[in-house]
């Protein structure tokens, strides 16, 4: 019982931890905003390119359905990841500024969710890359490359 109490109250953050968390929240905030703006720009750039391609003729528009799905998925993942990072950063900042355990807890939880989503995206990307590699090896063998 005594150990439990001491473990809770000894393992606290000092001024340096607060300052580091404050910096982390600042940079994470800029990172998330840059990510959101970048995602918006990429999508608008993509839409403009698609519209130009569709003006060229029918063959380009046949591929359009397939071409739209991939950026849409990327956009949704990018939005989710960056919004969660933004929430994590702002809650950690509020927690530090107001010494509120509630905000701090929410911020750290959102940061964990952020890493979890990035981890899952990493798994999906690994699976896609491995499959693409296997298919290209099989295709090369088929054509006698």
């Amino acid at each position, binding site marked *: 019982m005594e150990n439990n109490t001491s*473990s*809770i*109250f*000894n*393992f*606290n*953050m*000092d001024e*340096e*931890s*607060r300052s*580091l*968390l404050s*910096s*982390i929240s600042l*940079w*994470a905030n*800029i*990172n998330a905003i*840059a*990510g959101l*703006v*970048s995602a918006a*720009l*990429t999508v*608008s*750039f993509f839409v*403009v*390119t698609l519209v130009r391609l569709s003006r060229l003729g029918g063959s380009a528009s046949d591929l359009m359905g397939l071409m739209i799905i991939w950026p849409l998925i990327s956009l949704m993942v990018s939005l989710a990841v960056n919004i969660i990072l933004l929430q994590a950063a702002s809650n950690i900042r509020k*927690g*530090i500024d107001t*010494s*509120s*355990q509630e905000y*701090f*807890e929410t911020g*750290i*939880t959102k*940061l*964990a969710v952020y*890493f*979890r989503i*990035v*981890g899952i995206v*990493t*798994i999906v990307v*690994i699976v896609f*890359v491995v499959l693409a590699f296997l298919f290209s090896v099989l295709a090369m063998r088929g054509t006698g490359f």
Partner: protein
Amino acid sequence: MTELPEDHLLDTGLHLEGEVRQQLSDSARWSRFIAIAVFAACGAALLFGLVVGENISRSYRRISGFGEVFSLFGDAGFVAAVLIVAAAVVTVYYFLYNFSRKIKSALETESTAELNAGLRSLKIFFIITTVFALIALLNTLYRMIQQQ
């Protein structure tokens, strides 16, 4: 017996207990996985570069002007480019790996010094990735302006 003030955290600072500990441990576990996956991807890219790099360099030089960038390093241009990119990525993700390692150790030993070392690594990781994100953003803007 005096009652504790409603928000006694104002006196003692923020606590790393219960939910916060659990979430920090979760963050450490996932960030470790992400860092190791990136290290493995860089290793695979290097291996790929070593196996087919020279062929790719020659092909690029034949079909486009882009190969001129690679030709600065001779036939091994592609391998050199992959090596530089992989080294940069590994350096960035080393900080994420270090964050994971230090936070795990901090939670086990309840050491504030280890916690700070982990947070410092996470801060550096976010600084570098933010700089890269801004460069990517500027690059997208530049391409958009060029297309207009």
